[in-house]
Structure formats: structure tokens, C-alpha cells
């Protein structure tokens, strides 16, 4: 491993933070404290973590309905995120967006998105802006296996390739679009095979291996920053929970679920860290405690925040 101990630890911290954020969301949703649709990222933490570790605040991402992990990995603030889930005035979107629309444009986070596939053109446009302005910033687009069947995928990757945009398209293939297994929604095994349709490089990697994700995205980002154009990276992964909270996931084979839960990306990294003596068990316990603490503080912040005031209903429709 050529990755520094520091980096590995930061991966671990980020993944834990995401996991605990999501576990807290499970709890809060079940308790009726969070309204609306909540789509959780548990089991997929390695993708956002490994990918965003290559980015700075100047770089852009677009996220999805399953967005908490991307936002945390890109530097989103936990208290503002949590307050947004509660619909509070102190939230990222003043409570007007909710889980599916959290954004932090200053951090380059162009939003979670409730429309499957809608982030693809937006990320492409952000990449266009990076190139147009001659910065070396890049734009990373997260989306699912299901989203790769939308027309937006096709049009976006084609445009990015012609214009040699600094974009990285990261397909989080958790093998399901809601209840629809990949086998039934496309007739290929590797979504990265679609890159050839646009004349861009494509690769498939283990999305539960944060280091593999980090390395692959690193190459793609380097390529993009150099002006060599976009790439498509498919990360095979698995969501542990239902599509949204409340979905019992009857369409999944319990055995497959079991197999994949064993490949939990956090456990995988933990084992590696211990094996390579990057951390001790005690340090791990400490990091876990710390992460829990941050989440609790965020919940505290959210709970103590106020609802938006009524006149907020009609503001922010137009700028200026």
C-alpha cells in the first residue's frame, strides 16, 4: 500500500461517520422524527469516501437520492445536514430541501437529487465550467446502476467525451434499482462496458474496497485535470437496507444479502488497518466513539433548531 497512514485513517473516519449518520437516520425515521423519503447509503460508504478523497472544495460533485454519503465525504457539515433532514431552518437548505436536496454549492456539492439520472447533465455542465474557466477543477458524478439506463446517462457521457470535459462518472452498482435486479434492467454484466460507446475509458472495480476506489478515481481525476477527458468507473457494491426506509426488500435473495453484508466495506478496511498495524483495537474503539459523538452533536443541533419561519415559504423562488 502506498497510501499514507493518515489517509487510511481519514478513510476510516469518513466511512464510520457516514455509517453512523445513516444508522441514526434509521432510528430517527422509525421514530417518526424525519419525514419524507429516506434512502440510506449503508454498505456503500467506500465509494463516496474513496472517490471524494481525491477532490478539493474547488471540485464539483453531483449526488443522488441516496446522497448522505457523498455529502459527508465531500466535506458536508453534519449538523447542517442533520438539521435539513429534520426540516429545520438551520439546515443546509433552510428546511426547504430535505434529504433528497441537500447541497453546499460553496463546497462544490451541486446537490442530492430526487430525479434519478438528473445529476448526470448537471455534473457535465459543471465539468464544462471547469474547462471553460481553464481551472484544473474536475466534476464527479455519482449515480446508480438504475440511473445508467436513463437517457441522461447517454447524452451526458457523449457530450463530455466530445468536449473532453474533466468529468468522472462513478456508477454505484448496487445491483438494484429499487426492486429491479441488474439482470432484468440491462443485458450486460459490467456497466463500464458502456464507456466504449462514447470513446472514453471505463473500468469496473470492487466498490467495497475503499482503496481500490481511491486509486481508480485518482487516475481518472488526474486524467481529467490534465485535459484528457472523462472516464466511467463502475463500483460494484450493495445496499444493506431497503431501497428507502420502510422497504423490507423482499425482492432480494437473503443469501446474497448475507454474502454481501460479510463484505461490509468498513469491516474490510478495519481488518486491513489492524492487519497492517495502522491502528490498534483501542484506537478503533476511540475513533468509533468520536464518530458517534459527532453524530449525536448533529442530532442535538438539529433538535434544538427551529422550524423555518412562514415567510420562508415564498423566498428563494427567484434570485435578485
Amino acid at each position: 500500500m502506498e497510501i499514507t497512514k493518515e489517509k487510511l485513517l481519514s478513510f476510516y473516519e469518513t466511512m464510520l461517520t457516514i455509517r453512523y449518520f445513516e444508522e441514526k437516520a434509521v432510528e430517527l425515521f422509525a421514530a417518526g422524527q424525519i419525514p419524507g423519503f429516506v434512502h440510506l447509503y449503508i454498505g456503500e460508504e467506500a465509494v463516496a469516501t474513496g472517490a471524494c478523497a481525491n477532490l478539493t472544495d474547488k471540485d464539483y460533485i453531483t449526488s443522488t437520492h441516496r446522497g448522505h454519503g457523498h455529502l459527508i465525504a465531500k466535506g458536508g457539515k453534519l449538523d447542517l445536514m442533520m438539521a435539513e433532514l429534520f426540516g429545520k431552518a438551520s439546515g443546509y437548505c433552510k428546511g426547504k430541501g430535505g434529504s433528497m436536496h441537500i447541497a453546499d454549492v460553496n463546497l462544490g456539492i451541486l446537490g442530492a437529487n430526487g430525479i434519478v439520472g438528473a445529476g448526470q447533465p448537471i455534473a457535465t455542465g459543471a465539468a464544462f465550467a471547469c474547462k471553460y474557466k481553464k481551472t484544473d477543477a474536475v466534476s464527479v458524478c455519482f449515480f446508480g446502476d438504475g440511473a445508467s439506463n436513463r437517457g441522461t446517462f447517454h447524452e451526458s457521457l457523449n457530450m463530455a467525451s466530445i468536449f473532453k470535459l474533466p468529468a468522472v462518472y462513478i456508477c454505484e452498482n448496487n445491483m438494484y434499482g429499487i426492486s429491479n435486479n441488474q439482470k432484468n434492467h440491462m443485458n450486460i454484466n459490467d456497466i463500464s462496458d458502456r464507456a466504449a460507446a462514447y470513446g472514453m475509458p471505463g473500468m469496473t472495480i470492487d466498490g467495497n474496497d475503499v482503496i481500490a476506489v481511491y486509486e481508480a478515481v485518482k487516475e481518472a481525476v488526474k486524467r481529467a485535470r490534465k485535459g484528457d477527458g472523462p472516464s466511467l468507473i463502475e463500483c460494484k457494491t450493495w445496499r444493506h437496507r431497503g431501497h428507502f426506509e420502510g422497504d423490507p426488500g423482499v425482492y432480494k435473495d437473503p443469501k446474497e444479502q448475507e454474502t454481501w453484508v460479510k463484505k461490509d466495506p468498513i469491516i474490510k478496511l478495519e481488518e486491513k488497518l489492524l492487519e497492517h498495524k495502522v491502528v490498534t483495537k483501542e484506537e478503533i474503539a476511540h475513533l468509533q466513539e468520536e464518530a458517534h459523538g459527532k453524530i449525536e452533536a448533529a442530532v442535538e443541533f438539529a433538535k434544538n433548531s427551529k422550524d423555518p419561519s412562514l415567510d420562508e415559504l415564498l423566498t428563494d423562488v427567484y434570485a435578485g
Partner: protein
Amino acid sequence: MTQMSYVEGLRDGIRIEMKKDSNIYMAGEDVGIFGGCFGQTAGLFQEFGGERIIDTPISETVIVGHAVGAAAAGLRPIVEIMFIDFIGVCMDEILNQAAKMRYMFGGKAKLPMVIRTTCGAGVGAAAQHSQSLEAFLTHIPGIKVVMPATPADAKGLMAAAIRDDNPVVYIEHKGLLGFKGEVPEGEYVVPLGKADIKREGTDVTIVAWSAMVHQALAAAEALAQEGISAEVIDPRTLAPFDKDSVLQSLEKTGKLVIVHEAVKTGGLGGEIAALVADEGFDLLDAPIKRVTAPDCPVPFSSYLEAHYLPSQDKIVKAVKEMF
């Protein structure tokens, strides 16, 4: 008659028609074993099998577009767009293909197809999963649009939509799916284009559809306490619109309030008001009022969302200002 929920009603309508005609099939995202995002299609996969209840990829454009081709080639597709908010993804297929093919071909095509979709706020689903976009559809000649408010209408309008030889958009309100009521057993058809007087009254006419029918009925009840007799008209079919029922009611009442969950500007309420301000001008003895959502996206916060929605109280207030 039997007691059924709205979702059971619409499913019953589908099931009865599908049993009769093997050319009817349903395609959409997660309509199979999953049973639909809100359970609307639960059991249909088990009953009719995977050849007739078909899970599609997340590809709304081809979901609707393929239905146009399949219908032109003799089938009777029912396709689902999970939320009406996604209608923009397949709008060209609705606007330029489904709606216009018959006319462009000089009458030589028939497109019996139903697009099922859900609308409505109130569940914290925010700006992209809560809209009421029926006005986009009623501005497109060539398609019909229905929005049932009760379990019986849900069933009867579904049957009528499936039997119609034109593209029909059938809009379910997600807040009504569990709503219970009396529903006729067996075959039951509510003709398209016919409004229903949900409550008779003499002092003011309230036109409302979908979930707003229930707010209007509650408002009418409250108004009755104050001595105002409100008639509640549910057009049920928005295109073609049954304007005669509104004009007839106005002959009695002379006052019109239109209620819809869609944002005000450009909503179908404007069209109805305009029809009346032309053809029923002499019947009016007060300004036409609209009670609608304000001109903004649907907010996530439950607190804001509650204020966003038109409600019984807002209707009562609007009516009382007329007296």
C-alpha cells in the same frame, strides 16, 4: 356495494379489465413483485404473471414511448410513471407522439393507452415528488386526463380510461390511496368527461378535484354551520372538461371558488375561471376566487408544507369573503 380503499378501487378497475382483454398489459418501474411504490399494483404480478405485469428499467422516455408504438400496433398498454413529477422525462412522448399521432396521421391511428401516475404533496416528499402537474396535460389536445377523488371514482374512471381509445393520463393522489368508501362490485364504469356533484348547495359553487374534493367537502360542512350552502363539483375528468355542470351550478349560486393543489399561476383553475368569465359572465355576482398552492416549489419542512397546501380553512375564508 362494498367498502374499499381508493387504491383497492383503482386496482379492482385494472383487474376486471385485464381479465376481459388479454391485449391489456401493464409496464412500469417496480410494478411487479414490489407492487408499486405505494402498493398500487400489489398482487397483480401474482395474478397476471410477468408477461402482463412488467418491470421496466428506469427509462420513462421509452416507457411512454414504447406504449405509443404498442398501442398503434394493437395493444392496450397501461404504463406507470411513478410520480407525475417525472412527467418531464417523457413529455415529448406525451406531447408530440401520443397526443398528436392520430391527428397527424389524418385519423388513421388509434392509441388506446393509459398513463398511470401519482400526484400530491403532504408527505414530506419535497419539490420533486409532490407536484400537481395536471395543467401541463390539459393544455395538450389529444389526451384525456382524469383525477379521481373517491374509491368508487378511482375504480370507475380506471375502467373508462382503459376502455377509451385515446391516451388517458390517470392521476392518483398519494394522499388518498388509503381513503375508504363505498364502491360498486363487479364491472363499474364512470364515463369520462362527466363531473359529479359531490354535495349539493345553493349559495356558492366550489369546483375541486382529487384530494381537494375532501377539503372542499369539509369546508362546505363548516360553511353550512354558518348558514352558507356550498355546492361541491368534482369534474373528475379534467380533459375533456365538463363545463356545463359548472355553468348550471352557477345559475343557482352566482358565486364560484375553484380549488386545486397545483400552484396558482397557469393552473387549470385559470382555465375554468376564464370559461366562466366568458360563457357564464352574466351568471356571476362576485369575483371568481381561486384557492390554490402559492407560486413556489413544494417545501420539505412539514410546517411549511402544511401552509403550502390549500385547506378547508383557506376555502372557508375565501368563500366567506364573498358574502
